[in-house]
C-alpha cells in the first residue's frame, strides 16, 4: 500500500511517464526529491503490493491496426456473476472484465468485457467462441462496438490531495 506522501508523489510523477534517457529513474527522483535507489526500491514495493498492476510500454491499439473494439455486456444472475467473470477473463483476447451495477430497465447489464481485434469479423468470431465455451448463450447480451475516439489518455489517477495536475498527455 501507499506508505507516505513520497509514495503518492512518486506515483503521480511516474504516471506522467518515464523519460527516454539513460537514467530515467534518477530523473523521476529529481522531480520529487528522491534518490535513484530509493525511487527503484519504492516502485518495486508498490509493484509487489499490487498497487502497480503492470509497468511498461502503454500502447495505443488503434494505431496498430486493432481498430475494432467491442464492449460486450451481459445480464447474469448475481449468484453466477463471479464464476462467469473469472472464466471470461481467462481468454487471451479479453482485455478487461468487470462487474458493474445494473441501472434500471434501460440498462440491465452487470458483467462487462472488452475485446480488441483487427476488424469486426475477428471480434465477433472471438465472442462466438467465448460464448460457446463459457455457455453464455442463454443470457441477455449486447455488443457495443466503438466508433469515434474523442479522448484516450490511459488512466491517470490523482490523489485526495492533488500535489500536481497531471499533464494531458494525449488530451
Amino acid at each position, binding site marked *: 500500500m501507499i506508505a507516505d506522501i513520497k509514495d503518492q508523489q512518486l506515483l503521480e510523477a511516474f504516471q506522467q511517464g518515464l523519460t527516454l534517457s539513460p537514467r530515467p529513474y534518477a530523473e523521476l527522483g529529481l522531480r520529487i526529491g528522491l534518490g535513484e535507489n530509493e525511487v527503484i526500491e519504492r516502485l518495486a514495493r508498490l509493484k509487489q503490493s*499490487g498497487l502497480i498492476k503492470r509497468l511498461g510500454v502503454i500502447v495505443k491499439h488503434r494505431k496498430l*491496426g486493432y481498430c475494432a473494439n467491442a464492449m460486450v455486456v451481459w445480464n447474469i444472475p448475481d449468484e453466477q456473476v463471479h464464476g462467469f467473470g473469472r472464466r471470461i477473463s481467462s481468454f487471451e483476447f479479453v482485455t478487461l472484465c468487470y462487474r458493474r451495477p445494473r441501472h434500471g430497465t434501460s440498462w440491465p447489464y452487470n458483467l462487462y468485457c472488452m475485446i480488441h481485434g483487427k476488424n469486426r469479423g475477428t471480434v465477433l468470431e472471438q465472442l462466438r467462441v467465448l460464448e460457446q465455451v463459457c455457455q453464455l448463450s442463454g443470457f441477455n447480451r449486447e455488443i*457495443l462496438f466503438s466508433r469515434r475516439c474523442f479522448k484516450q489518455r490511459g*488512466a491517470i489517477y490523482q*490523489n485526495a490531495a492533488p500535489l500536481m495536475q497531471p499533464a494531458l498527455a*494525449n488530451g
Partner: protein
Amino acid sequence: MMTPLHKQLLNDYQGNFPLSPRPYQDIATELGVSESDVIKALTELNETDVITRIGPVIPPNRIGVSTLAAIAVPEAHLHDIAQIVSACPEVNHNYEREHYFNLWFVIIASDADHLQQVITGIEQQTGYSVMSLPLMDDYFIDLSFRMDLHDC
C-alpha cells in the same frame, strides 16, 4: 515503418519493464542491441503516437475513485457534447459506441464527493443525465495484450 525492434518493444515490454538504474541498457542487452537503439526506437514509437508513455498501470479505485459513465445523445449533438465531456481533466477515455447510450467515458476523481461534483458538472454543462456504473469487481489479472504485428 516498423522494425523488428519496434515490434519486440511493443509486445515484450508492456509489463515487466526493468526496475533498474539503466532499464534501456538492460532491454538492449536482452535484445542484443545498444542502449541508444532502444531509446531511439521508443522515441520513434512515442513520436508516431503508437505508445502513450512508459509508466505504471494502476488498478481502478486503488488511488482515488473512478466510474464508467454513459450518456444517450442525439447523433446531431454528439460531437459537441463529446467535446464538453473531453474537456474535463477528470475524464480520460471518451468513446462513441453503437448503442442508444452512445457516449462512454471514464471519470477518475480524488474521492466520492469530487466524483459526484464532476458528474453533476457534466450534467449541467451538457443538459443530459449521466448514467454512472462504478466498478464492483475486477476479474482481470494482466492487461498485457499480445498483438499480431506481422503486417504493420
